[in-house]
């Protein structure tokens, strides 16, 4: 029922900077950091926080907060792209590379499921977590990661749409066979490459 031609709101530009050639298709630039969640923000005490890596054979390796924070961390400066169509450039994070967490773990799996406090899940090819492409981030913009942005720690896989960067991460399970996560089971693209605009099934 959209009128044709579309009705343009005179003088409306929205909360964005002018367009830029460095943005993936269909994305708009934002200056702030919208809070997007599919559920309530869980309250996680650092004493209770755990990160568990489960292999395809069921072996579990867990890190407490202090063990996790004792791992070498790196600073990451990256653009992020949300499927709700905003992109934010040059965001600065600190996190532990998945390469560090996966080191020495014998893995014949090809896929991974990220799992969050609160029940959210998202699936990725294991290859997309390796080779300096993914981190468990615990600082954003020089501050401890705020709960509404996924703190104490979230997955950061910035080369894919942001729904893959699970907030409130509590574990990753390696899988021989792929399974869809929370949104991937309901129309969202299984891979989610913003540069190929893979928003939905079949994109």
């Amino acid at each position, binding site marked *: 029922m959209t009128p044709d031609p579309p009705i343009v709101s005179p003088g409306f530009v929205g909360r964005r900077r002018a367009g830029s050639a460095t943005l993936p298709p269909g994305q708009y630039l934002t200056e702030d950091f919208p809070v997007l*969640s599919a559920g309530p923000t869980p309250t996680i005490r650092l004493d209770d926080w755990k990160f568990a890596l489960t292999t395809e054979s069921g072996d579990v390796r867990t890190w407490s907060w202090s063990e996790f924070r004792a791992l070498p961390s790196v600073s990451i400066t990256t653009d992020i792209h949300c499927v709700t169509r905003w992109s934010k450039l040059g965001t600065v994070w600190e996190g532990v590379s998945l390469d560090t967490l996966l080191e020495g773990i014998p893995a014949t799996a090809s896929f991974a499921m990220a799992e969050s406090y609160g029940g959210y899940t998202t699936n990725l090819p294991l290859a997309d977590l390796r080779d300096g492409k993914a981190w468990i981030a615990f600082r954003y913009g020089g501050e401890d990661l705020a709960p509404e942005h996924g703190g104490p720690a979230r997955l950061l896989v910035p080369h894919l749409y942001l729904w893959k960067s699970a907030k409130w991460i509590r574990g990753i399970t390696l899988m021989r066979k792929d399974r869809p996560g929370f949104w991937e089971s*309901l129309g969202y693209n299984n891979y989610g490459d913003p540069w190929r605009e893979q928003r939905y099934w079949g994109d």
Partner: protein
Amino acid sequence: MSKDSFVDGNAAAGALLSVFSIDITDADAQCAACGNVAPVARSRVYAFEPGIVLRCAVCEHPLLRIARGTGRTWIDARGLTYLELRTP
């Protein structure tokens, strides 16, 4: 004060109406997880296009998940035991 980004079910009435063509916010819904029965308007809605999640106001379990792509809409209603609609 809650920092959560949800609104009431009634705030999503427009989106729900455009999906279902009838107003379900006035309908009673039973949560498949905890059994609570309440109008859809009382559920907590996390709505960020293209995804909408309606959660039980008591146990936070998802009642209804909706994703909307160009020309396609996906609905997962596993979290609902039933919906009681008011029919004219």
